[in-house]
């Protein structure tokens, strides 16, 4: 009961211990972070030395272009993880994002092939993407289903709709917008690369420069604290899923431009997207996903696939490496979190 207990001077030594512990943890986190970055650098150095043509301008631009789609998707995933918290089992995650992109691409290509113009087709694709995102938000925020399961279900819905729409065939597409995306360039940089640059800039400014972004991190980092600060947690979490759907739609337009068609199998990108968003955390002092970190990971994954190609290593290996990276990052973050909890 409450019947009066006194305060003690347990104090001083405790404080020192806590400080030492905290310093130890910070040091551990630093080692992990620097270790990961050093590993990245080592892999890149290996490619520079042994992969023929790795450092050529042509090759690097090619990688950036190839990374545009992955990048846009990874931003969507990152925003969901920021807003939902990076808890591995209960935190935010959007497994449907790649399938959503496939569906949006199918909608976009089908409408174009039916003769609807660019404007209408783009609006429809974005509408579909955001609707799928809203469905995720409804399942996660409205119905309280674990994001892992909710978005897995929505993944199947989106994939099923894509198949229904395209009958599992390639739907060819061409339009003025696609023409610009394929062959347009400005200041010697191709349109696809510009898309990545502009999208990255917007995301970085919004998430890291505005109070909106700050609150988004608060919502993911400690929902109760965010709520106590008068922030509407459901709104922010819902927003990230809709944003993720929007990113899927934007990526779908880029993918249609790159392939001049909507093709089945976009779901395979999911692993790369997840790897990019999770890997990005090691670039952050706070061990949280950041847009800048995601950009670096996207480029890293792009360069990894590219380097393997140049070294004539089967591209199937890339999947394995990405999977291993995800495991590693998740293990490290869980470990870091575990030591936090034992305080």
């Amino acid at each position, binding site marked *: 009961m*409450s019947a009066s207990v006194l305060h003690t001077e*347990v*104090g001083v030594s405790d404080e020192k211990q806590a400080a030492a512990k*905290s310093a130890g943890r910070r040091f551990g986190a630093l080692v992990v972070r620097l270790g990961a970055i050093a590993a990245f650098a080592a892999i890149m150095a290996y490619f520079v030395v042994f992969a023929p043509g790795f450092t050529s301008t042509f090759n690097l631009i090619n990688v950036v272009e190839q990374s545009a789609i992955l990048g846009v998707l990874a931003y969507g995933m990152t925003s969901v993880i920021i807003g939902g918290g990076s808890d591995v089992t209960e935190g935010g995650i959007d497994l449907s994002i790649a399938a959503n992109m496939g569906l949006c691409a199918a909608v976009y290509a089908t409408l174009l092939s039916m003769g609807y113009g660019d404007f209408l087709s783009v609006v429809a694709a974005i509408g579909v993407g955001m609707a799928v995102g809203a469905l995720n938000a409804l399942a996660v925020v409205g119905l309280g289903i674990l994001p892992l399961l909710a978005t897995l279900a929505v993944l199947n819905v989106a994939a099923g709709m894509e198949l229904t729409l395209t009958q599992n065939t390639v739907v060819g597409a061409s339009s003025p917008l696609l023409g610009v995306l394929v062959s347009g360039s400005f200041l010697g940089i191709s349109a696809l690369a510009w898309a990545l640059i502009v999208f990255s800039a917007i995301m970085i400014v919004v998430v890291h420069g505005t109070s909106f972004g*700050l609150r988004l991190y608060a919502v993911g980092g400690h929902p109760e604290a965010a709520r106590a600060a008068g922030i509407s947690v459901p709104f922010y979490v819902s927003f990230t899923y809709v944003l993720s759907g929007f990113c899927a739609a934007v990526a779908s337009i880029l993918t249609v431009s790159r392939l001049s068609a909507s093709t089945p199998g976009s779901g395979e990108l999911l692993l790369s997207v997840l790897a990019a968003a999770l890997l990005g955390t090691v670039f952050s002092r706070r061990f949280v996903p950041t847009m800048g970190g995601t950009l670096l990971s996207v480029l890293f994954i792009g360069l990894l696939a590219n380097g393997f190609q140049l070294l004539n290593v089967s591209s199937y290996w890339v999947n394995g490496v990405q999977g291993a990276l995800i495991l590693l990052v998740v293990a490290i973050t869980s470990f870091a979190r575990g030591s936090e909890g034992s305080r």
Partner: protein
Amino acid sequence: MQTAKRDIAVSMTGISKRFGPVRALENANLEIARGSILGLVGQNGAGKSTIIKVLAGIIKPDSGSIVINGETVSALTPASVEKLGVHFIHQDRLLVPTATVGEAVFLGHEIGLGPFVSRRAMERRAADLLKRFFGMELPSGTLVKDLTTAQQKVVQITRALAQKASVLVLDEPTAALVKREVDSLFDVLRRLRDDGIAVVFISHYMQEIEKLCDRVTVMRNGTDVGTVDPRQTPIDEIIAMMIARDVGEMFPKRSVELGAPVLEVSNLRLGGSFENIGFNVRAGEIVGLTGLLGSGAKEIVQCLFGLKTADGGQVKVEGRELSLSTPVRAVRDGIAMLPEDRRAHGVALGLSVRENISLASLRRYSRSGMVSRGAENQAVDGLIKELSIKTPHRDALVRELSGGNQQKVAIAKWLSCQSRVYVLDEPTVAVDVGAKVEIYNLLNRLAGEGAAILLLSSDLLELVGVCDRVLVVYRGRLAGSFSGPAMNSDELLAASSGARSNADGVAA
């Protein structure tokens, strides 16, 4: 503190709130005056936290009215309450661990231009405030998770001050602080009071209430039972208001012949928590164990549960040495345990009363791996009746029962195993008074049947009322063993806080 009409900042009247079958608040009132510090005290479950959460807009009351600064407000939300200048320092450190100090202080009220934030300005302003109010300097950009508990508490208070709070409510703000920090916190609170801010101070520490508060409101069983001046009212009287029930009536008397030692602990130690702990519990004996937060008492019990592994020492049950490496081993070795967090470890909320009760003892109703339902039902019904567990039927889900009845299910689970040693960790926390008495009766009965019982509790009156002997842990060592007339809450308190040690010899 003039007796003239005081300036009322917040007035809550007739607040009631139920959670399912549990009555959390019943016609409770709270009046907070400007320029004064109001203490809010009561036993666990008396409704202190609930009424504060109502004011914070976190819990919607079923009925009652709230007037803030002369304005009747309804449908409070955390945001609208803050706009009215009422700020809360919650017991849980409600701070984002990955935020910097500046971000944590200004979250929701960011400094910047339009939608853009200026992190540098926030860090600087936060540093200014920390220096001004607390004389505390932290490296710029320090993350909340890298702060000590006390520093986090200070950041929380700074957060409220940054937003020009006119009413400041602190829920157990000193629980994790050391004395020096408590003193500086008190200085800050007095300064804020003198500036005309209304401060509400919720604490279990009566000395703090006496030292700091101008008035104190006592809560009991979900309602306020009086408001007094703590400087003129003896602490005993305030405690009596909190309990109301005659202690003798609450703690049933018994007399048992003590048998041979059943639980023998010797030289137990756990690095950083406790060392050289040795005591016995004899058949039929109820031994209390108490100590302040961080004293090591809790960790001793956790070692007996197998939740923590001791670095050295011996634990014997009926002469057999136990390894106690995991809870599974502890159970197998005949220790029945009742962890504090019954939702996490004590009962399975999603299972029925029957399943919970027979969970630990299925083997007894099983023949070659099959459960004999008839024998199980008979045993379960017997226990439900015996413990007067209020449940519609044996297959009702434990989730649907009240806290006290859930606790009884947890105890029944072990009764059906017929254990010889019971270790209980705060069995009556968040349990209503009626259920408490039933739990005490149950402990008496178990002891009467020859079980050895170790009861960890921070409720000193409970210990005095129930136990044959109370062991006090102070800074990781046994500071005393009290029985007979020496076993009273004053002595226990003095020993807990290190003011006195040992009454009748540690080794019993």
